[in-house]
């Protein structure tokens, strides 16, 4: 008995054969899976909870800071400034590359790449691209000062205590 010869599959034709449609679909599916895998991995490695320091913390009573004090809390990376009955918190993280700026007579200066800031955190020299941000300061019901590093405020906004 003679085996029936299958018709050769047309290659190179423009017609959308079933085989070609299925190949396109599978290719699309495989490529899509790859994209989804990559994104899932990115989502996976982006932590939902962090274990570092909280961004909202209290720093003690207003009386702990005498008038004219400029106290740098290096662990919190803020400088508490008290001027009369006004109090504010200025970031001590250098806006250039994240080193801790030290409090100097003229304001702040960075040991890493030589950025200088004035008393209010405005850039006076060096490679820093912008001023040191000021953080929201509030008086908690228990009488302690709370600093919220998640909300930046305009420079010169003091809290009256």
């Amino acid at each position, binding site marked *: 008995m003679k085996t029936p010869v299958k018709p050769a599959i047309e290659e190179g034709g423009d017609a959308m054969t079933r085989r070609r449609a299925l190949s396109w679909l599978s290719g699309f599916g495989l490529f899509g899976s790859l994209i989804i895998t990559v994104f899932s991995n*990115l989502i996976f*490695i*982006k*932590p939902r909870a*962090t*274990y*570092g*320091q909280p*961004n909202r913390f209290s720093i003690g009573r207003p009386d702990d800071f005498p008038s004219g004090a400029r106290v740098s809390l*290096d*662990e919190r990376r803020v400088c508490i400034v008290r001027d009369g009955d006004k109090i504010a918190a200025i970031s001590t993280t250098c806006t*250039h*590359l*994240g*080193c*801790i700026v030290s409090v100097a007579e003229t304001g702040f*200066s*960075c*040991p*890493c*790449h*030589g950025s200088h800031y004035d008393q209010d955190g405005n850039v006076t020299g*060096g*490679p820093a*691209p912008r001023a040191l941000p000021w953080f929201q300061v509030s008086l908690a019901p228990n009488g302690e000062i709370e600093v919220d590093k998640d909300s930046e405020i305009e420079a010169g906004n003091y809290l009256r205590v």
Partner: protein
Amino acid sequence: MSNHTTTRPWKSLIELPENIWRSVFRNPLPSSDLGRASTSFTNFFLHLHPVKIHRNSLRAAFTLGLGLISFFLFMILVVTGILLMFYYVPSTTQAYDRMLDLRGTVAFGIFLRNMHRWAAHGMVAAVFLHMCRVFLTGSYKPPREFNWVLGVLLLLLTLFLSFTGYLLPWDQLAFWAITVGTSIASYAPLVGSQVKFLLLGDSTVGQEALLRFYVLHVAVLPAVLSLLVAIHFWRIRKDGGLSRPAEEDALPVEAPATQVEVVQGPAVVMATSAAAAAAVKPVLQKRQYGIQGLVRGPFTKVGNVPDRSVFAWPNLFMAELVVFLITVAGVLLVSLFFNAPLEEPVNVMHPPNPAKAPWYFLGLQEQVSYSAFWGGVGIPTIEVVLLLLVPYIDRKIAGVGKWFARERLLANFLFLTFVITNIILIIIGTFFRGPNWEFVSPW
């Protein structure tokens, strides 16, 4: 036959050592060309090399052995790195103590750490110099364009490996270098702060960052680097070995109308010269044969074709052994006399002044001190993109395989400008920058 074994049962015992030896090493030490070919062919490690290689590839003055040195340094780094992993703990509270333990209590601990550190410095230097060699000899020209691209990626991986390893001792140097380094990443447009957050796993450098850098350093990056190295080597073979001047190939060839065979193995291929010539690209037609006409610049021809190739055994293998021994000896010597630096334990409140990155990043840090974006992201990105595109910009096929070919005066001049600028920036960053990154005189 059965009679044989019954009468002399001890025979297999007597022959045991030899039989085992022969089952492992299929060839005795070769004394003929056939033997030299089969030795390369039947040994797993040797068969990564071609059976025959061009004499030009053996010229120490041409290659300076820099690619091999880079590879052997990587081997040293893998071995010493795995050994160090037995004692290291990626924890902010323990990492630094473990460094002290390596110094004080672990047998050979300080020596292994020295080897790892100095081999890492050496690898950065060797990979960079290898790139210079390849450029200045015009070796990235077709068909080797993509291997140059792989090489640039390998340089970047080497730098990133070294950067991630830098954090692990958790000393002052490490902490502040990583703080500065990841802040540079945050200047990248659009994705910058996301990249920084993903790298650190937190908003500041801490435990999460240490763990992440550890995983990158000991698993992810070495795996990727190994894969790219394998492809890099494989392509060297497929591109017909190392580059050489075209005239090296243009030998008078009397065409033997005979068949060519590749010695042994399942890949035995017979190809008539006519069939091969028909399949080989026109440019390569001066060559006589290829395995089914697929191999470019083949060295598999074993017939009586005159050429300038020599057997890999022993010429290439001895050369590789010598480079390997020199590399190991160099690392051992340096590690004997110089200890890897370890500074004070991390103090997140007081950056050292000045806080300096490792020497190969000091050029970058010097640039960064002028402008964080342009120095840290803009210019480096442009440099890397230009490096990647080099073989696609410079399409002239002239001056390949020669140091400082006259035809390549402009290209070499531009490249050397790039190299020297970076070296000058590194020198300034290393010796001329003091506290607050102010200009100081080293004298």
